[in-house]
């Protein structure tokens, strides 16, 4: 896995969070995922194919999910219901689109499937690739409250 692929996801997430949510994010130290479990409690997943094949997921804590929903829609949600799940699915879709534009600049064309959202902690996920999964941790602040999410991706 070429470290050059980290940047497309970083750019994509920054762009989406800034433009659509009005949230500044900070990335922590990238690493390799040591397990096959979802990193947070609400996880958007998308596979892709083309010049490379693989998957990426964006995984939020429950509190961060609700913060993201409120920032995106302008309404508070009491829990992770269908509207919130839908919102995370769409966010995953938009980040995927932006990342693919950046990856295209590296010379690779990718197409994506429809996103899936997994609700639950430590749910086992099977990344379809045989190469290690890169894990990017992110934090953000909304109204003085810290939020957290993780971006995992792998392709070959």
């Amino acid at each position: 896995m070429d470290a050059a692929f980290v940047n497309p996801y970083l750019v994509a997430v920054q762009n989406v969070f800034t433009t659509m949510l009005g949230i500044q994010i900070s990335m922590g130290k990238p690493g390799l995922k040591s397990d096959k479990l979802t990193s947070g409690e609400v996880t958007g997943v998308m596979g892709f194919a083309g010049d490379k094949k693989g998957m990426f997921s964006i995984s939020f804590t429950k509190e961060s999910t609700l913060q993201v929903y409120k920032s995106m829609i302008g309404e508070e949600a009491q829990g992770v219901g269908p509207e919130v799940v839908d919102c995370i699915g769409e966010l995953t879709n938009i980040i995927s689109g932006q990342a693919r534009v950046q990856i295209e600049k590296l010379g690779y064309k990718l197409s994506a499937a429809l996103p899936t959202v997994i609700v639950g902690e430590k749910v086992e996920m099977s990344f379809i690739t045989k190469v290690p999964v890169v894990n990017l941790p992110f934090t953000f602040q909304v109204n003085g409250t810290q939020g957290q999410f993780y971006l995992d991706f792998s392709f070959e």
Partner: protein
Amino acid sequence: MKTLVVDDFATMRKIVKNVLRQIDITNVTEAENGKQAIEILRADPAYELIVSDWIMPEMTGIEFLKACKEDENIRKVPFVMVTAEAQKDSVLEAIKAGVDNYIVKPFTPDNLQKAIEKAKAKAGK
């Protein structure tokens, strides 16, 4: 202005409707995919604007766009594609199919408003 918003994600339909409300477009119908959308348009020729996503089940945005442009009663309705598909090939494909404007997610309310104005001008509305 009677408007049809097409997206399989309810969240995005809500966001687009909120932006449309800011530019005084409040007469808005929603559809979850291109198949539903084309049925709505064929049943009612009074629509003046279409705002559609690309990746949708049953009938994609590009298939829906082509169906609209092939229909004499619908083809002059300004069609704005609002999509996460930002790669050059996708944009070119939509232009070839006759899209009146194309805006990539994520977008600001201002981006969408300008895209709608340009689409209306291009369609002579």
